[in-house]
């Protein structure tokens, strides 16, 4: 017996896609220094020195780190702040 082919409800997918959180990603660059990036994460996000250092080292070693997530408006504003501090930041959906 053959099962009926699954029907994909694109509306459901669309709603799910819309609800997926957004994140702001900081990318490694060869100019910004590690202490500066740690400071910016602490200043803008209120992170502890430990968390800011962990994220910074992730940027340095992995090439990128998702440093914050949430609604699109929130991460867009955070991306703006990071750009104002000269960090290479982008926005993407998780």
């Amino acid at each position, binding site marked *: 017996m053959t099962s009926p082919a699954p029907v994909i409800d694109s509306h459901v997918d669309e709603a799910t896609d819309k609800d997926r959180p957004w994140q702001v990603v900081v990318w490694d660059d060869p100019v910004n*220094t590690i*202490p*500066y990036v740690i*400071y910016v994460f602490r200043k803008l996000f209120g992170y502890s020195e430990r968390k800011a250092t962990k994220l910074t080292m992730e940027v340095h070693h992995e090439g990128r780190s998702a440093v914050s997530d949430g609604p699109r408006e929130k991460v867009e504003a955070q*991306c703006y702040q990071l750009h104002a501090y*000269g960090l290479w930041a982008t926005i993407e959906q998780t």
Partner: protein
Amino acid sequence: MARRFQTTRDGRVSLQLDPAESAFLADMVAMLESVGQVEGDPGEKRLNVPAYLGDAEAAEDWRQRMGDRIEIGRSGDRDVLRSAIETEGRVTLQPEKAEAILRVVNEARLVLAARLGIEVESDYEQLDPGGIVALHYLGLFIEDLTGELSRML
């Protein structure tokens, strides 16, 4: 030799520059004022990285909404640095003004590095001595000021 930065008891940051430093930083401000005046300026490209990768429409929309705010902020930061270097002797700054100086000096380092062709770590090996000294000085300036401002977090 006097420390370049000192945190005051009332939570401000004092800054002491010698004439050579002031002159160099004035040159950096002039360099930043030139960003975007020449097509294909790597400094402009570095400062204005897209906020969305692989989605030019979203990146342009973000740029339309945020670009002016970023430019106004950068211009204000340059004004703060210009004012500080035009003041003779030690100048005492509110933390937000010291923060502005941190941003603009870092911005100068980013633009200078981009114009010197720094894209990856190994590019530093190709720099001429003048480029090395300039980037090193700006890096030390940023490190010192970051250290002072970190104490206030």
